[in-house]
């Protein structure tokens, strides 16, 4: 286990280095000019040059990359061009909102996926169920989000459609308002945070739920025909018991893998949803960084999201091996002998 974690940690560092390099390599070929973004549109050439020198943008790319790596190792992701704050500090500031939204979306998504899978099992081969799910899964996320805002908030007024909290000036230790509200024994805050969270989380969760739900449905369908399920039925277990005790675990691997894939796709959706719901998270920060060619910020957020993605995938691998003891964490390469 420890060896596994260590190996994955080394892998993580390798991936981060590669990612940093990729984005840095891009920087070498783009005509974009962060110095211009810093100095302003009308700034004279001398000012521009001064800013370039100050940022070290006049150095060759490998030198910049080396310098960047050196700093990253020390936990310094550079200074954002737009906010003029250390990128790390910015990430710390914006991360909790994204984390709250992402976790809630994963939770809702997984729950809905289970629901979808059960509906799928209850009405196998139902064209209506399938078409509904696929349609939901192929709607552009921004349309889903805006329709949710329009109907649920604007038209019906059931849930708030923007922001994280109606209360101003509340903050807690974790930065996740829902949890902080509970920690501070402020049910009003927790409830308010939950209300604000539901719609955007639902928007992010929907594609996850559809993809994972369909995968789980298909996987269950297959597993429930395996001989060992017949053994368990032969023991007198009911359909439900056989499904919960034996089917689900055996069917978990493929949907878990799909969940991992969806987490990768979720980062893009987070940017959209955070923008539409005015949700002050890393996605929003990233989107705004695009507009001002804020490369340190783009790089920093990419690294942050990248790390989260890798950690999430390690988690998923562990969940897979937990569900099925045959899947070793070692990912053995030796062929099956004799």
């Amino acid at each position, binding site marked *: 286990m420890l060896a596994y974690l260590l190996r994955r940690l080394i892998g993580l560092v390798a991936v981060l280095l590669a990612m940093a390099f990729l984005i840095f390599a891009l920087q070498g070929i783009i005509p974009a000019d962060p110095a211009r973004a810093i100095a302003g*549109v009308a*700034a*004279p050439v001398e000012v521009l040059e001064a800013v370039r020198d100050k940022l070290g943008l006049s150095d060759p790319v490998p030198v910049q990359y080396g310098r960047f790596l050196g700093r990253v190792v020390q936990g310094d992701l550079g200074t954002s061009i737009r906010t003029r704050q250390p990128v790390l500090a910015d990430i710390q500031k*914006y991360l909790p909102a994204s984390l709250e939204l992402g976790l809630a979306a994963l939770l809702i998504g997984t729950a809905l996926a289970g629901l979808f899978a059960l509906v799928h099992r209850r009405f196998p081969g139902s064209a209506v169920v399938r078409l509904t799910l696929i349609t939901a899964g192929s709607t552009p996320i921004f349309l889903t989000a805006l329709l949710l805002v329009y109907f649920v908030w*604007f038209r019906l*007024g*059931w849930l708030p459609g*923007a922001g994280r909290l109606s209360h101003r000036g509340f903050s807690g230790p974790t930065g996740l308002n829902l949890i902080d509200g509970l920690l501070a024994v402020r049910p009003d805050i927790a409830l308010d945070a939950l*209300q604000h969270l539901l719609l955007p989380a639902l928007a992010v969760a929907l594609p996850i739920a559809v993809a994972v739900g369909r995968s789980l449905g298909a996987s269950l369908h297959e597993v429930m025909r395996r001989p060992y399920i017949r053994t368990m039925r032969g023991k007198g277990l009911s359909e439900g018991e056989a499904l919960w005790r034996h089917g689900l675990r055996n069917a978990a691997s493929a949907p878990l893998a799909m969940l991992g894939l969806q987490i990768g796709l979720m980062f893009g959706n987070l940017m959209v949803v955070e923008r539409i719901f005015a949700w002050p998270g890393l996605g929003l920060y990233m989107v*705004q960084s695009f507009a001002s060619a804020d490369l340190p910020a783009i790089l920093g957020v990419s690294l942050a999201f990248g790390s989260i993605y890798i950690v999430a995938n390690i988690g998923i691998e562990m969940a897979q091996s937990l569900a099925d003891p045959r899947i070793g964490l070692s990912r053995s390469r030796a062929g099956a002998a004799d």
Partner: protein
Amino acid sequence: MISKAFSRLGGALAVLTLVLTPAMAEEVLRVPLSVDIGTFDPDNGFEIGAMSAIDNVYEGLVEYAPGSTEIVGQLAERWEVGADELSYTFHLRDGVSFHDGTPLDAAAVVQSFERRRTGELALSYFLGNVTDIAASDPATVVITLGHKQPSFIHVLASAWGPKVISPKVFAEHAGSDLAASWLNEHAVGTGPFTLTEFKRGEGYALKRNDAYWGAKPFFEEIRLPVVPDLSQQILQLQAGELDAVPDGYPVAQLAGLPATLEVSAAPNMTQFQIYTKPGTAMDDAAVRSAVLTAINPALWMKDIFGDYAELSKSLYQNAMLDPAVPVSFPTDLEAAKAAIAAHGPVQLRIGVQSEVVSYARIAELMVAQLATIGVKASVEVLPLGAAYVMKGDAKAPDMLLTIANPDAAHPESQAKTYFTTDAVLNFYGRSLPEADALVNEAGLMTDVAARDALYEQAGHMYFDAGYAIPLVDADDVVVHAKGLVDLGLRPAFPQGNIDYGTARWAP
């Protein structure tokens, strides 16, 4: 089944929401920001969205009067220009104090202006021509220029012009960077509002400065939530959760606004222009004339801007300069078609600086218009900052659609930023020395009519040489709740710059 369950849950939560949402006090103005405020430092920040707030917290020596390009005193009650046109003497207003209680004096002005001038900050170039800033007595500041610059007073009145920061800030937070990092998110000025909340990504809040020297603002608090998505802004405005959408409300929807909303529009110095690359088919006078016929803004302006724009009369914004002879576009479409047919296939690549909606719409329209005369046009969104490095680049698009939006309401700002050979934003690096000479000559003149005549003449030369094409001057359009008045929009300020100090609910 799912939706039913969900609707029940939603209904239950809705009831709670109503109970929990605090009633809005009437003295709060809520205006959304599309983009985070990067920095609140008046010497560093140039983002359009932030300027309203910065200009309501900080004040300079002079300012543009609302609704005009006329310059009036702000912290300076009056000023004189020396006979040599190099020294400017400002007499400070009495009884002004900063938000932290420090009284305003000449030394404070000098300290702030010196920071701007020498601090290597983003906006330092504003005072590039200043050689000396001195306090001749506690209520008098004397600024000395290196060479004659009649436009200097406009520089001071610009939305981005130098502001006065409390000396206490420098005493307590100077650090090694002239307090730049502290001033990113904090502010102590003399304006009608103080900055009380700075939460990037979430929003900002200003509180009324009750010790303000001027007229007491109507609103007690200004809330500036970050609402990046325009659709969301519109919905929130219609739902009454915002009081105004300061910028970007789709013009096509203005005719059908709900009864609770209304529009305040004012002329603005937002001019859409086209810059052309040398060495394209447009160098042929006949083709150029045909293209001008097709993209004639008179043919499409209303489709995009409705009643909220006017045709540009020259390469200078209409609000800045009223030309004796406006530029004219040919109108014979049949002749244009014939010219293109005679010339052979013409393809044009139109570059736009970003995927801003108005750029996209105009570009789309121009493509459609050009198609009618047989010119094939395509649109490219340029990578970030690419527009600034197009000089001499053969792969650059054939024309660039952009907004010219000078710092100040003075033709020199426009000409020296965009047209002259050494202009920073002379995108394609084109050069017309005779016209440059006229601009330089005009820059030294104090007689406004004579000066403008020279600028106009230079403008015609740039236009006729095919450097740039003025299209449309777009209005400043603010959509807001009915009854919000005195928005204090200024033509020389960026769009949507509501003056929180004057805005109020009509009784």
